[in-house]
């Protein structure tokens, strides 16, 4: 099963916020994490991830900095949630719960 483009786009920001909610991370690791979380059913490309990350940064929800990775020694851009990002994550969680609950109830009744 493949998710529709619209659904992938809509869920991108909440997923990124949720992953960064566990601690700072970088682009490649975020894509891996999304793959794991969805058991391989959500496959993001860089072309999709980085623009969303940069937009979240422009909105002041996440912050970033270049740092050398301890394992590889290569420089990586790490992203982390700002306080505003944490608030946005809570808000997203609430909204998606409403949708989830409504759909569950509707499908349960059908």
């Amino acid at each position, binding site marked *: 099963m493949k998710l529709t483009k619209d659904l992938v786009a809509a869920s991108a920001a909440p997923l990124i916020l949720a992953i960064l909610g566990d*601690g*700072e991370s*970088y*682009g*490649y690791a975020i*894509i891996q994490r999304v793959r794991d979380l969805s058991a391989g059913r959500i496959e993001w*490309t*860089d*072309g*999709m991830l*980085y*623009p969303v990350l*940069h*937009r979240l940064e*422009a*909105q*002041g*929800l996440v*912050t970033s*900095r270049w740092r050398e990775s301890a394992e*590889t020694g*290569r*420089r*990586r*851009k*790490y992203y*982390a*949630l*700002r*306080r*505003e*990002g944490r608030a*946005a994550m809570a808000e997203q969680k609430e909204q998606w719960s409403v949708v989830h609950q409504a759909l569950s109830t509707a499908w349960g009744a059908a």
Partner: protein
Amino acid sequence: MFDFEERIGLWKQSLSASSLGDRPEVLDELEGHVRDEVERLVRGGEAPERAWAAAVERVGSREQLAREFAKVHEAPAWLAGRVALLAVAVVAVLTGWVVGSRLIAGRFGALLALHVFSITVAYAATVIVGALCAWTVVSRAAGRWGAARATAFRSAAWKLSAIGLVLTIVGVALGAWWARDHLGRYWGWDGKEVGGLCVLLWNGVICGALHRGRTRALNLR
């Protein structure tokens, strides 16, 4: 023979020819990703050449990347922040002009001129940070606030407070030096000196708090 570094170089070159070229940071980020992916695939037993092809495909074509990145807009500039920075620049120019002309006329020595300049600009920056904070409170009350503005506010407050802190340190130090030559002592706890020290400490506290906020956001120790 498959030369990974050469491929990376050519690939980055082809990307920089697109509209991504004016964002070297993005190219570095994408490069890191390709390296990570190739490493993972090769570790999994894939031949380097095939790993390379798969990694580049996963990142997306030049056109795709350029199209997606074109949708990202930089945060709109915050007018109040710009005005605040401009105001400090204006004070610096005016003070420089007044102090400079006195220096040339021989009414100020170099030490006193530098002291007056640093202290005036430092105090102006400190007062302007205060004004910016007051404006922020009004904006928030009026509901015209958001995460992007908060970021712009932090950035402007940081720049102004850093200017305030550095110039107060310079000004106080030069003042003490001047006092040694003219009053026979470095420090005498008079009103001006205590005032300078208070401003210095205040800017230090603000800079420290802003720095701490950023460090916390990044989960750094």
